[in-house]
């Protein structure tokens, strides 16, 4: 598998080429460079996957973990060192496919979406950088390599969110995204340090005896690592950066903030799954509860947002939380008894990447058409954008969990895992799944059905009420629709992939079988929610909607403001950290510490003034000093020496 190194090198090379001499290239050349390299990477990934899974299982019935490269990058003394390499195992290969596929789609899509934008080359450079970092993250051979690429991913995300660097919101959002995730990374780092110290290695498979000897430290370390993962994967309360991150170009949101980077946290937990299960099951359950709360919170908030990308963002948070919950509810590594969640989580990760990527790209196409993120500017778009409409609908159905679309299968596994953990958990999750269906279809109807914004505006224009002719929505160009169609196709069929054969908690083959009770419940709930959404939003504001709005006004307001989480964070950072810590410290430094130094100088000067009268100019007083001084010395010597 030596060629796998190319998977990393190609995006890096394309980043360097575009970054260093992008300004000299035409837009087209830059786009093609990036896309071609990504296409190669995608092909290589598929080949890798084919070779890897085609190689068959070992005697234990698992796929062998292959490490084609592992070099010592930075020795850290003792047995510790930061290694860089490539590790292939089922989940990393799965992630390679996900990342390279979505990334390729986004690369193609962006050629249309970003056409003519200032900084087009830079955009592609950053995309390549991101892809490189993300690929490096998933193939990491050890936790520290993961951390290295984790940081790089964070930076690429920062750069891409802030792509429109003249837009104040984008600047603020990029800053926020970076700092919040960085804050979480701090815990990750401390977790790694603890882990590294006690296991004497950074690799994912430390020695058993050391793990046992470390005792209570390992759960703490794993918990801290999870905090890092929670930051990247936008778990409550570290989720606040993700909705804002939608300020970046929409394809970026699709790639980074829907399909790949945000699932890094899930991937991290999955990576450490063996340790979690064996040494820190209680931490795993905490993860489940955090995930549950996040899923619920995000779903509720998503129901009332008006910016379509924000709806998708909260939906993403909610769905990632699903994956977290699925991992958290595992109680053993046997997929047949309590270990189902692992497989479910990875499966959902896979399908979610596809349909959420599709949703974002679709949203991008819509935004491209109407030049706004706000739902109020949309409505009735199905006439103008048929391809987008159909693919978007497929994605909605998939995420809502309607069979036979892919989301149904993965979500069903998650729910099954939850029910087997505890019925309460299952019930909650089913409810959230229903909410998901509701808000997705709310979104769908508001965009494609309901009042036709364009016609309204056109009528107004014709009546002379407005001065400018409204822009007629149009279907996106082929570069944009092609990825939509491909992703839609995957979303439709992905559910039938025998995922358990490739990925499972103990590595052995696991055949997915539907739990019909759970499936029925969820289908009923989803369909019910879709119906509700249809009633409420299909043709503009229905009476029911108005009624609900007036009844639950306060709650809806609160949900609209995301339960004021941003304000709380702002209060903590701006008011407390900036105004109450940093400012006083800066003041203290200048006015106390520095002033003390200055005081020494001033005091010396003052003392200089104080001794001045000694030099009176009168020779007699000089001689008084003379004799007096001598006498004092004499007395001192006689009496004190």
């Amino acid at each position, binding site marked *: 598998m030596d060629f796998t190194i190319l998977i990393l090198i190609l995006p890096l090379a394309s980043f360097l080429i575009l970054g260093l001499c992008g300004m000299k290239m035409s837009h087209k050349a830059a786009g093609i460079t990036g896309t071609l390299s990504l296409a190669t990477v995608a092909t290589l990934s598929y080949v890798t996957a084919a070779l890897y899974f085609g190689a068959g299982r070992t005697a234990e019935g698992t796929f062998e973990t292959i490490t084609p490269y592992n070099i010592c990058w*930075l020795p850290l003394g003792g047995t510790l060192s930061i290694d860089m390499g490539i590790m292939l195992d089922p989940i990393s290969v799965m992630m390679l496919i996900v990342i390279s596929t979505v990334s390729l789609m986004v690369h193609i899509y962006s050629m249309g979406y970003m056409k003519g934008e200032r900084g087009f080359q830079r955009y592609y450079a950053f995309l390549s950088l991101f892809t490189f970092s993300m690929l490096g993250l998933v193939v990491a051979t050890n936790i520290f390599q993961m951390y290295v690429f984790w940081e790089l991913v964070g930076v690429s995300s920062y750069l891409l969110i802030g792509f429109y660097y003249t837009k104040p919101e984008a600047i603020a959002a990029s800053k926020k995204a970076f*700092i919040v995730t960085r804050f979480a990374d701090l815990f990750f780092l*401390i977790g790694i*340090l603890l882990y590294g110290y006690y296991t004497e290695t950074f690799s994912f498979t430390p020695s058993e005896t050391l793990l046992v000897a470390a005792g209570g430290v390992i759960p703490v370390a794993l918990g801290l690592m999870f905090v890092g993962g929670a930051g990247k994967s936008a778990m409550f309360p570290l989720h606040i950066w993700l909705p804002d991150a939608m300020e970046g170009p929409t394809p970026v949101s699709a790639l980074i903030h829907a399909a790949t980077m945000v699932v890094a946290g899930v991937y991290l937990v999955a990576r450490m799954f063996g340790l979690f299960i064996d040494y820190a099951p209680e931490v795993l359950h905490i993860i489940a509860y955090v995930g549950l709360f996040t899923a619920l919170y995000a779903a509720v908030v998503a129901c009332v947002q008006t910016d379509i990308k924000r709806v998708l963002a909260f939906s993403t948070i909610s769905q990632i939380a699903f994956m977290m919950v699925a991992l958290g509810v595992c109680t053993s590594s046997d997929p047949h008894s309590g270990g189902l969640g692992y497989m479910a989580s990875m499966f959902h990760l896979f399908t979610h990447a596809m349909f959420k990527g599709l949703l974002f790209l679709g949203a991008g196409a819509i935004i491209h058409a109407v030049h706004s993120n706000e739902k109020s500017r949309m409505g009735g778009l199905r006439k103008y954008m048929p391809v987008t409409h159909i693919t978007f609908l497929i994605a909605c159905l998939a995420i809502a969990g309607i069979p036979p679309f892919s989301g149904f299968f993965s979500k069903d596994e998650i729910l099954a895992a939850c029910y087997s953990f505890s019925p309460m958990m299952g019930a909650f999750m089913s409810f959230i799944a229903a909410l998901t269906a509701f808000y997705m279809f709310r979104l769908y109807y508001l965009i494609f059905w309901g009042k036709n914004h364009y016609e309204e505006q056109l009528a107004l224009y014709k009546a002379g009420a407005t001065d400018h002719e409204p822009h007629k929505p149009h279907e996106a160009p082929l570069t944009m629709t092609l990825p939509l169609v491909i992703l839609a196709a995957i979303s439709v069929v992905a559910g039938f992939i025998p995922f358990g054969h490739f990925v499972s908690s103990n590595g052995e083959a696991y055949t997915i079988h539907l739990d019909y009770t759970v499936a029925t419940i969820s289908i009923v709930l989803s369909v019910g929610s879709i119906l509700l959404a249809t009633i409420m939003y299909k043709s503009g504001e229905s009476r029911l909607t108005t009624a609900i709005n007036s009844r639950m006004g306060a709650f809806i307001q609160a949900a609209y403001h995301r339960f004021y989480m941003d304000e709380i964070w702002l209060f903590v950072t701006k008011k407390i950290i900036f105004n109450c810590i940093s400012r006083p410290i800066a003041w203290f430094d200048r006015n106390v510490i520095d002033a*003390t130094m200055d005081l020494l100088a001033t005091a010396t000067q003052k003392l200089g003034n104080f001794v001045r009268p000694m030099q009176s100019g009168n020779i007699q007083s000089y001689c008084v000093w003379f004799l007096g001084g001598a006498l004092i010395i004499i007395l001192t010597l006689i009496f004190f020496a």
Partner: protein
Amino acid sequence: MNILNLFVVIPLAMLAALWLSRGIKQIRTVMVTGSTLLLALSVYLAADFIAQRNAGVTAAQLYTDSWCWYPQLNISYSIGVDGISVAMILLSSIIVFTGTFASWNVRPHTKDFFLWYVLLSLGVYGFFISTDMFAMFMFYETALIPMYLLIGVWGSGNKEYSAMKLTLMLMGGSAFLLMGILGIYYGSGATTMNIHEIAAKGNIPVELQYIFFPMTFVGFGVLGALFPFHTWSPDGHASAPTSVSMLHAGVLMKLGGYGCFRIAMYLMPQAANDLAWIFIILTTISVVYGALSAISQTDLKYINAYSSVSHCGLVLFALLMMTRTSCTGAILQMLSHGLMTALFFALIGMIYGRTHTRDIRQMQGLMKIMPFLAVGYVIAGLANLGLPGFSGFVAEMTIFVGSFMVDDTFHRTVTIIACTSIVITAVYILRVVGKILYGEPVNEEHKRLTDATWDERFTVICLIICVAGLGIAPLWVSDLINNGVSDIIATLKP
């Protein structure tokens, strides 16, 4: 002829040549030739050093030589380098080299500027190659004093005050240091000033160590921006001209850390072990406090100066942890901070040279006006906040891993506190980047400004390559400094 002598001889020759040169062309020729020679020499030295190490030469010091200077006082001009010194020499050469280009257009009195500049670098080189305490101290002070004139004459803003403050505080520090050196000399029986001989004897009584270790450490610590003796740094950096800031933050502040390690800790291991906790607390404060102070500054150079306080605090912090890894990290951090800060100050100088303000509230949208400098600034910022692929990450991670190896609650706690600096760093770096580079240009005056000239580009690119080079391939540095650090650690933790 010992090759190390060239590090003193070349600057001396440069001084002489500068003294004789007429006109800006000749001055530049002298400077470029000299600094290039020095750089080439340093690279050769590093390469040769690594080659020798790989060939199995295990002596603590290579290229050693000694000339009796003041025999009655046991003072000699002894030279010799281990990996740490080689790394520092290399760093100095890079900064001196790039600093020359950063001060391409210094006016007025270009000649005198470079005279003092070369004198300063002479001191720096001398300090790193010496193994005799007296010579070290002499070179140390030689490096300090030109700062006064360099800041006072060619600086900006409240330069007289800053220059005076900086000089006096550093000289105050060296007063402590001199006490320490004399204490070490007499404590060890007054037979030699050579640090390696003293270390080999290891006979300084513990009571004396308790007195002189803090003095020596504080003495060097002042230069290493140890809290609460760091206040010269913001003012000094703010007023200094570009290349002086570069050299000062890039190299001079490293003298502090190097000295703490080489003299204070190495020669007085017992006290270092017993009293480390006091200084660990101080340095932890430095690390966090510097970073927090930086958040609310509005002057670019102040931000960077406080950032330096934080980063240099980390150097001392790591040294005091006294594990091999943390000390390796400290050396890496010295290199990394030296390069990064030099880059930062170079960029700030270039921006200031155009906008004539360093107030972040008055600048916006520079990315559109001067893309090269802005991109450079973003890279410098990212390097500073520890992005993998740049030197800062390597250094910080090594430090944290190394510090974490000390297994008790106190050390763990302070390490975790120190770790928070990576978040705070991100806050102030991104704040600045967001404020001055992004957005639409608002100031009409600024819209007419030009991007970097060739000499500026050259400086920036050189430094970025170094920062990235160290960040991507840190292994050779470890090879370089391994033995040196091990020797000292072996003394500290027998």
